[in-house]
């Protein structure tokens, strides 16, 4: 980089350091469960929109605090099966099982015969 440009940027550096790297690294390190948490939050949010359900109403259905529902909807909560079951019951949707394993390894049409 040209000296003048580098000097300008250094002279105009932010006073507090950014947390972008540590947060991006945390997300990468926890990606195996975080992606599920984010996608479950999306499903829950869409169902809530569909029903016109508030966080408070969902918390009442799950018998938990609104703060906990808020954490779930941020997609950063490593939820237990117990919590997932409560969410499913409260919303009447399937969150855990999306697809069946075809066993033995046959194509779907063969499995129906």
């Amino acid at each position, binding site marked *: *980089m040209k000296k*003048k440009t580098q000097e300008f940027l250094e002279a105009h550096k932010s006073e507090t350091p950014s947390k972008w790297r540590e947060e991006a690294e945390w997300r990468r390190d926890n990606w195996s469960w975080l992606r599920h948490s984010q996608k479950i939050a999306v499903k829950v949010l869409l169902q809530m929109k569909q029903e016109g359900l508030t966080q408070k109403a969902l918390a009442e259905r799950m018998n938990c605090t609104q703060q906990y529902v808020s954490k779930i909807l941020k997609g950063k909560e490593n939820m237990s099966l117990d919590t997932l079951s409560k969410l499913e019951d409260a919303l009447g949707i399937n969150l855990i099982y999306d697809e069946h394993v075809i066993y033995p390894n046959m194509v779907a049409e063969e499995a129906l015969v």
Partner: protein
Amino acid sequence: MTFDKILDNNTLWAVRYDGAADNALKLLFDQWNDPEWLVDFFLANMADLESYFKITDINQAIYDTIDDNQRMQCLILDISPEADLDKLFRPLENSRTSEMLLGKEKAKIKERPQHASWLRIYAIKLEPGCYIITGGAIKLTRTMQEREHTLNELKKMEQVRNYLIRNQAIDADGFADYMSEL
């Protein structure tokens, strides 16, 4: 505005706008990792998703965004000091073939299955291999002028470009030398 160094070798920086909690890259990743923001965005822009990408499943669109965002974050995290950033960033206008002073550039995920990625990171090119990230967007239309959120990104790029020119942040003579070497 101030600037945050993203790579220790000084080749990649990000703008921190006045009053913002962090730089444009951090705020972008936060936004793309927020299920509430993503649901609201796609519900508001569903018509563009259907008309331009022919996708009607909002669940899948958001899941794809979450996966692409993760790939984008890893891409930035894993940039090596020897990496050529000119291969990551491309001129904003597909038709632009020549260098321009403090050009507007974009980065996107390549080679994703099923549909092109709609995630964009926008930057100003300081000189070959050196960039300042100004922001980013989920681009669901052919041009940036068509929607307010992408039009705003164009304005941000122009704002940063003007700031750098006004404050003589780049060596114009050096740039002229570079142009003559092309």
